[in-house]
Structures are given as structure tokens and as C-alpha cells.
């Protein structure tokens, strides 16, 4: 497996970051700041660099290269495989087609099961229910195929995200790449590093991804109590306190959900993912040191000695919270995986990875999710 990474910055244009020499890549993965790809010029330039490659990419809430976190850049990683095979599946969502599970089923059907080793997925980030999407893919492929990836971002605006497959990225697109053959090796790790604070409470009233009551009291009031002065900046400041949920008696199946909106009138909160009634919920708090340690832990889970490339999908919430210290979590990953492993990635509206201690994949929030790739 050979790699070449490029960065595009508005002031400098494209620049090669590192290269294993002249390579003939089969796959190019790029992560682009919102707005940078709108005119189609950057995609055409990439196409001209790697005319024979299949190109997938998406917009972000921040781009990761080596140990840097950028805003306003494009990071492209070209990968030449020696023997591994690739199959791509793409679909759209939006307009009439709103069903995320069905979109997942369509993607899954596009990937032959024979020889499939793993799936990397990029999805629209504002029109898709990630939990349903992953369930749809696993419905077709079964639980023993690892699915990782993330939902595209739109900076901190949460308005419109774009994904592209051999075309300039567009809203409402989803693309999955299936890795095939015995030579391919994949690893993953997904860790949050958030601290659960305060008592566990029961979700006593919710509907879909809207939460009303915890322990029969309005969840919004509880959040305001925890946020204190920061409550004035809701919903943005709710990023400080994501919610951990798990089915009663099953803390090992915990998921973290990010607040994406509030409704003062109904005292309701909207989350990036389903909040099932009856689940146990606990407010979480991000301590920078612990979040950074969490990223390192994710890297240790994903690490294997031969890993050549790591795709980091980290949550936009972590970046908005940590500000200039965000790069520390990328450095923590770099420290674990070492010089030999190249890093790329982006800040996402939702990370996709298997559940801890379970073959089933799900949508995660507020994690650092890492996919490591190597060819034996």
C-alpha cells in the first residue's frame, strides 16, 4: 500500500504533504472545509492529479492532517493498493426519499458479501439518521462486517453538508467503500473520554430524537442548571454537556448524544440521534485532559504495528469545546500510532463504529473514532 497526501489552502493552493513516490492510486479520500468545493475547481484538480482513481470526499467541521487541525483547507489522501479490491456504493437521500434505513439497505446491496473485509462510509450529515442508516447496512451485510466512517460536516453552522463519489460533493449524498481481499487489514477504535457527572436519570418522556423529561422533570431545566452562565448561549453551549444514554441495566451499551437544538416553549431538546424512552441518561462534561486521553485510548484500540493510514473521524462538538487545544487530541493519536502511520480525517456531525463489546455498529456522538488500514 502506498500513500500520497496533499493539502489545499486558500492562500497557497495544493501542496504535497508527503508521498511514497509516483503512485497509481485506486482510491482518493478528501476532506474539504465547507465552501471550498462549491465551484467544482478543486475536485477537477484532484481528478487531474489522479485520473485513474475513484475519488470520495465530504465537507467537514475541520480537517485533520498529520498533527494539525485546519479550518478552510482540503486534505486529500491517495491510496494505491497492491492487491486489495475496492467496491463503491452510492445513494442519495432527501426530497421524497427520507428513510435512512432504506438508504443503508441500498448501500449494503451495492457491496457484494464475498470477500468483504470492512466498509468505510461517508454520509450527508444533516438529512440522515445515522443509527437507522447503519442498521440498514447491517441488515444486508450482517453484524460481522465492521462499518466505520462519519457524517459530513458544515463547520459550526449545521445547515448543509456535501458528499461526493467521483463527482463534486453535493448535499444528500452517501458513499460507501468496501475493502476486499485477504491482504487488507483494518482496525478501529472509538472512545469519547467524557466524564459522566451527577446521578443517572430515566428518560421518562421522549419521541424520536427529541427529549422532554428526565425523571419526570424537563430536561432543558436540568441542562440550564448544569450550564449556569453558559445557558445563555444555548443551544451552542449544550455541546459542553452531551448526554450519555444506555438501556436500563446495560451500561456497556452506552451511547453519547449531542444536543443540536432546543425548544424553549415545549421545554424540549433535540439530539443528534434517537433518545429512547426508558433508557438511563446521565449528563456528561468534557474535561480537556480527559477528552485528549480518550483520543489516545481510541488510537490504542485501533492500533496494530503495520497500520499505514489512520482516518480520524472526531466529533465537531469536541473541536468546538476544545478550541485551540483540539490539535492536542490529534497529537495524542499520533503519539500512539507513531511516525509510520499517516493521519487524515475530519471533524464530523456523527461518527460510525461498532459498539463496545458488541458486533453491532451504531452512530456515536462526541467520540474520536479511528479507522486504521494496512495491506499485508
Amino acid at each position, binding site marked *: 500500500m502506498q500513500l500520497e497526501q496533499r493539502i489545499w489552502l486558500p492562500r497557497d493552493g495544493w501542496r504535497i504533504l508527503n508521498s511514497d513516490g509516483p503512485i497509481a492510486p485506486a482510491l482518493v479520500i478528501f476532506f474539504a472545509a465547507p465552501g471550498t468545493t462549491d465551484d467544482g475547481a478543486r475536485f477537477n484538480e484532484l481528478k487531474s492529479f489522479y485520473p485513474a482513481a475513484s475519488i470520495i470526499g465530504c465537507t467537514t467541521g475541520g480537517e485533520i492532517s498529520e498533527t494539525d487541525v485546519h479550518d478552510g483547507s482540503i486534505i486529500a489522501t491517495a491510496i494505491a493498493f497492491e492487491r486489495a479490491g475496492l467496491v463503491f456504493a452510492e445513494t442519495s437521500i432527501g426530497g421524497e426519499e427520507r428513510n435512512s434505513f432504506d438508504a443503508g439497505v441500498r448501500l449494503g446491496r451495492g457491496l457484494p458479501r464475498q470477500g468483504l473485509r470492512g466498509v468505510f462510509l461517508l454520509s450527508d450529515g444533516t438529512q440522515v439518521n445515522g443509527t437507522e442508516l447503519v442498521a440498514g447496512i447491517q441488515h444486508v451485510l450482517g453484524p460481522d462486517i465492521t462499518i466505520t466512517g462519519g457524517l459530513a460536516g458544515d463547520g459550526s453552522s449545521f445547515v448543509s453538508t456535501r458528499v461526493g463519489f467521483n463527482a463534486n460533493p453535493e448535499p444528500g449524498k452517501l458513499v460507501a467503500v468496501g475493502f476486499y481481499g485477504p491482504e487488507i487489514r483494518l482496525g478501529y477504535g472509538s472512545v469519547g473520554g467524557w466524564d459522566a457527572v451527577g446521578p443517572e436519570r430515566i428518560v421518562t418522556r421522549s419521541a424520536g430524537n427529541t427529549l422532554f423529561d428526565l425523571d419526570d422533570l424537563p430536561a432543558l431545566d436540568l441542562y440550564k442548571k448544569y450550564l449556569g*452562565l453558559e445557558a445563555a448561549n444555548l443551544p451552542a453551549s449544550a455541546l459542553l454537556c452531551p448526554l450519555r444514554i444506555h438501556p*436500563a441495566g446495560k451500561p456497556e451499551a452506552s451511547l453519547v448524544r449531542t444536543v443540536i437544538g432546543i425548544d424553549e416553549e415545549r421545554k424540549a431538546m433535540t439530539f443528534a440521534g434517537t433518545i429512547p424512552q426508558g433508557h438511563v441518561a446521565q449528563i456528561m462534561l468534557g474535561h480537556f485532559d480527559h477528552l485528549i486521553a480518550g483520543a489516545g485510548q481510541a488510537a490504542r484500540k485501533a492500533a496494530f504495528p503495520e497500520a499505514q493510514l489512520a482516518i480520524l473521524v472526531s466529533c465537531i462538538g469536541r473541536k468546538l469545546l476544545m478550541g485551540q487545544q483540539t490539535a492536542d487530541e490529534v497529537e495524542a493519536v499520533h503519539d500512539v500510532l507513531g511516525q509510520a502511520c499517516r493521519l487524515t480525517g475530519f471533524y464530523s456531525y456523527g461518527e460510525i463504529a461498532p459498539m463496545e463489546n458488541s458486533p453491532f455498529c451504531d452512530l456515536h456522538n462526541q467520540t474520536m473514532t479511528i479507522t486504521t488500514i494496512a495491506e499485508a
Partner: protein
Amino acid sequence: MHRLLLRQLKKARGGKEGGAIDLDTLLTLVDGAYGEFERQHRVLGHTHNVMREEHGQLNARLSRLRDGISQMGAGFSIWDSDDRLVLRNQRMREILSHITGDIQQGVCFTDLVRRETPFVLTIGDGKDPDEWAAARMSRHRNPAGPFEIAFTNGRFVQVWEEKTGEGGIVSLYLDITDRKRAEDELRQAKEAAESANQSKSQFLANMSHELRTPLNAVLGFSEVMMSEIMGPLGDRRYHEYAKDIHDAGSHLLDIIDDILDMSKIEAGHFDLDAQWIDVADLIGETLRLIGARAREGGLTVVREIEPNLPPLYADLRSVKQILLNLLGNAVKFTPSGGKVTVAARLLPSRGLALSVSDTGLGIAAQDIPQALKPFGQIERALSRRHGGVGLGLPLSKHLAELHDGTLEIASEPGKGTNVSVYFPPARVGRAAAVAS
């Protein structure tokens, strides 16, 4: 240099090593970083305060729960997913103190069962202790409703176990010894009463039989004497005495028959021999038997029989006995100049109704239940004045019930009594069948 400052310098150099530092960029970055640190510090400090407050609330909730559990009347314990005791209340310790002695937190459930087993009463009956312990464990792991354990110290415990969310068990031990003893006493008393009643019925049946045999001689020979088959009795008074002997004997025989029937019914040995009966015919026949006594008593007897009455599927002897009893009572308790009415009619919902009403003494409402009990004739004085042992009404009621029917009494003291017997529609034939 701190890695953050290094990054800020790199950014201020436009991302190029050794480039010129843009001071404005650097200051903006440094200022921003201080702001971020302050915010984090503020948020953590505030959260600390909120958590302290919530900690207090949690403590209050916890002590309320702990208080509630300790005040429970049942033994309460929680076992974790490794089956170790996490919590038990005072009552649990008291219940177990009589059996296994107190158990300590952290003790394994298997250990409790091991200590409990030698004190289990059923094991004394030859049940294998290992088998009992295994069954107890399996019940504990897959709870399916409450069960009871009897201990050798005479205590009974009802055990309720349920799975907890974390995969452990919550267990309730209820000392039900007092309830078990009361149940036991009640059962013994019931058995004794049933046995006594059985003996009584048996005794009555035997006695009735023994009484009937000599009575046959009394009746037979008094009849022989009355008919003077073997020659005249001589003095007319002998003839009257013979008639008195015969009348008294017949009355005695009736009473003995009633007692025998009552004891048969109570013992559940009364068999019905059902057939289609023409009710009008039967009433006519009965009135002929009772007519003389009514006339002697100066009573008017009225028949109100619905025309074209359908036949009744019933035991002829029983229905006749009911009619005789009711008419006999009416005649007996109605003063001279009164009226006795016997009626039969068809009611769409209740079937065939036979009723006997009189203008006699009547029964007070509160005395009616007593009148329906065997040997329950209302006033002893009445019984002495009118004779009889008070079996007529209860026997009629039982006979009606044997036909799935009912007997109802409506009465007003001083005005009269109406007794109606209802035979259900299932026992009533079609009127046309009789007509043909």
C-alpha cells in the same frame, strides 16, 4: 515551549517553518486560548457546585429509600449479578436469625441455601437435601412467582424473588407462620364438622330404618283391628283407639320419611327419577289427600291452574312431596274460615311456578331464613301446638334445588304466606305435547 504556543507561532508564521511572525495573528491566538481556558475553568467550577447540590439531593433520596426498606414488614434483600448479598433489612435479619443466623453483606446466595437446607421441614420427610438445595437455586435464578418454605422451628416463610435490571435478584421473605396456623386450625375444624355431619346423616338414616320396622307392625295391626278382619272389637271405643293408633303411626311414618330424605339429601345420596309429569293431575291428586283435613279445619281451597299447562320433567315423588308439605303447612297454620290457594303457571323467564298461598299466621321477614333450615320451626310453642319437626320447608327447598329450581317465601305476619317453587325452563315441555 508549550505545544500550544508552538502551534500558535507556527500559525502566526503562515504555516511555514521560519517565516515571519504576524504579531496580530499571534496575539489573537494567545488571547483566544486564554479565553478558552477561563471558560473551561468556569464551567468546571460551576459543575462542581451543581454536583455538590445533586449529591445532597441523592443522599436525601437514598436515606428515604433506606428508611422505607428498613421499616418494611417483610424481609428484604438484594443480590447482585454474582449472587452476592448487597443489602438486607432488619426484618430479613430477624426472620433468618431463627433459621440460619444473620447473614453478612457479600455472602453468596449458595451459602445461604447451604445454611438454610438442614432446617427445611420437608427434608425431615426423607427429601434429598441436595435435591432441595438444587431446586431452591434454580427457583432463585429463574423466579416464577411466590413459594413457601416450612422450617423445622415451626416457622413458615413465603418467598418472592424477582430479577433486577442489573441481572441480580431482589428477594422478599414474608413470615406467614400465623396465617399458616390459622389456616391449619380452620381446615381441621372444617374436617371435624364435615365428619360430624356425615355421622349424623348416617345415624339418622339408620335410625329411621330401625324406627320404620316396628312402625310397620303398629300400622299394619291397627289397620287389621280397624277393619275387624278377625272379628268385632266389641266396645266402639276400641275402634276409635285403633284409628288413633293408626293416625299417630302414619304421622310418625311421615316424619321418619322426611328425616330420611333430609339425611339422604345432606349426604348427597338422593337420586332423582325424572319423568314427564302432568302438573294439573298431580295437584288434583294432592288436594284429594289433603282435602279432608282442610274441610275439618274449616278452610276454603282454591285451585288456579293455567289452562293448557305444559308437562314438567321432574321426580314425581319429590314434586308430590313438595306440594304435600306446602299444602300441609298452609292447612296447619291457617285458622278456621281462611283460604288456601294452590296455583300453577308458566313464566317465560323462570319456567314453571307452583305456589301455595294461605291467609294464615305468616312469618316475619327476619324469621324466613330460620324457617328454611332443617329442624328450624320458628317458635317452639308453634311446633308444640301444631306438631311437626319443621322439616317440610327445608326439605321442599332442597328438593326444588335438586331440580335446579328455587323456593321463595313471601309472607306478612297476620296476613298469610306465599311459597313459590320455580322449576327452570329446561325442565318444561311444550304445551302441545300434552294437548295431543
